[in-house]
């Protein structure tokens, strides 16, 4: 198993959570929406921090590339966190238009971010970090969440 496989699978898990939260809020089912959305925020946050604290530093140390792909990925994490905050505010004020618009934007941003990671960055990480223990640490942290 590649060291980034747990991250790969966790993307799919977050997709499920996203779909559930979006559906509930679009139906005006706010109680369910709140629970689903909290779960989504929690899992995305776990995912982002696992990458930022474990994977990216290890990759940067192994390759010396500190301003390349990892920098862009960090920037996109920031954008997604901001969007999640906007959606949180929309949820609090029961504004389904604002929530839906935020969700639409988050979805595309998140998906193209995942594609870049899955198609480009993760394979690079697997190459550079194959022999390290980062994979085990990642798996552990994502499982614990």
């Amino acid at each position: 198993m590649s060291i980034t496989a747990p991250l790969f699978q966790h993307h799919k898990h977050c997709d499920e959570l996203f779909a559930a939260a979006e559906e509930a809020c679009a139906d005006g089912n706010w109680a369910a929406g709140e629970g689903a959305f909290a779960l989504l925020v929690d899992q995305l946050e776990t995912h982002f921090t696992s990458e930022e604290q474990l994977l990216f530093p290890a990759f940067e140390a192994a390759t010396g590339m500190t301003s390349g792909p990892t920098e862009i990925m960090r920037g996109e994490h920031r954008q997604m966190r901001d969007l999640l905050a906007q959606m949180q505010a929309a949820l609090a004020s029961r504004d389904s238009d604002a929530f839906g618009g935020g969700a639409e934007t988050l979805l595309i941003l998140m998906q193209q971010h995942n594609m870049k990671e899955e198609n480009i960055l993760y394979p690079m990480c697997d190459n550079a970090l194959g022999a390290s223990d980062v994979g085990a640490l990642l798996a552990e942290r994502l499982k614990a969440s």
Partner: protein
Amino acid sequence: MHPSLSFDQAPPISVPYRFFLAAPWFGVMAGILLAWSGGDALASRWTPEVLALTHLIALGFMLQTMCGALFQFIPVAVGGNVWRPKLVANTVQPLLLLATLLLVAGLLFSRPGLLSAAAPLFLLAIGGFVVVVALALWRTPATGMTLWALRMAIGSLAITVLLGSLMVEALAYGLSVPILELANIHLAWGLGGWALMLLAGVSYYVVPMFQLTRPYPLWFTRWFGPLLLLLLLAWSSQLLVDDARWPLLVALPLLLLVSVYAGMTLWLQYTRRRKIHDATSMCFRMAMASMLAFAISGATFFLLPELGADPRFVVWLGMLAFAGVFVSAITGMMYKIVPFLNWLHLQRLGAPLSSVPNMNKMIPPEAMTGQLRLHALAVVLLLAAVWQPGLARLAGVAFAASCAWLGWNLVGAVRRYQTFRDRIRAAGLHH
């Protein structure tokens, strides 16, 4: 490692937009042309009006948007570096526009001078585009079936344009070439090798992403493109093979392949995780349903010669392919790409994100679904008008109106982009 990987080289927003903004107005021209000519125009595939309509959509609507989309898609999706996108787009797009108008006028009014002027312009515009894009596609270190589909599509575009130019010069100078066979080969490379191959390659990437579907199965993406290419080569060999059954033998597997793609896409969407319906998913469903109808009608054409003998039958196929499949699919793509690009470029201006409006504020969802309903009505009328010539004018008006509404929605999105950009910049100055 991957040193030349362009992770984030999206071109300036004006690059895709200048193509996207022009395209709908070619659709409007097509609608007006049909409304003005009336039902006799659709009597067979060889009327000057049908040839003009075909290329208004193929080159004015489809090729415009597809070129614009590739400038955006290649860096972002397959990590390719397009050489000086702004310069290339600013050159290619006006040339393409002019060449299309010349060709269409030449076909419509049977003017050899216009036709032979159009060909070198196409060779220049599309030749330049193909070279730049091919370099980006062959140099990228990325891999995957989307990339291979794009490579095959761009090669097919070159073949289509070469064959088109050859026919154009033959018509202009009265050279004797097997024009029927050449036209059939040309249209297969244009619709199959270029447009469908590109649509498939892009769908591998965007269908899972927009709708949270499962990915296309690996066996499918591995075989679809190469098989399509192989069948197009076999189809082209009808120039050499002197057997009347040969086209039939190739066309049936080709149509089967096309329906597998359409069926697969519908199935993935049907089993998707995301439950929201939006304009884009409706567009895709319309396009795929039209594609299935095209495949079934195409098979009927070959298997039941009595039916296929009616010269209107091929016009019916053309309506399904152009208005039903490609205009729908492309509309759906633009309705997703344009709001997202607006958002992406606005938030890059450095404003706090909360001051950048979300995607649904860029084109109101009701404006998109309203336009789509009109488009669906126009497609139905166009299909009916093939058999009921009395409906042709109405169908033309409906199609023109629907394309104008699409154009208006896109103009609105660009205006909103400019308003917010100016607002963000002004706020930045006060800090």
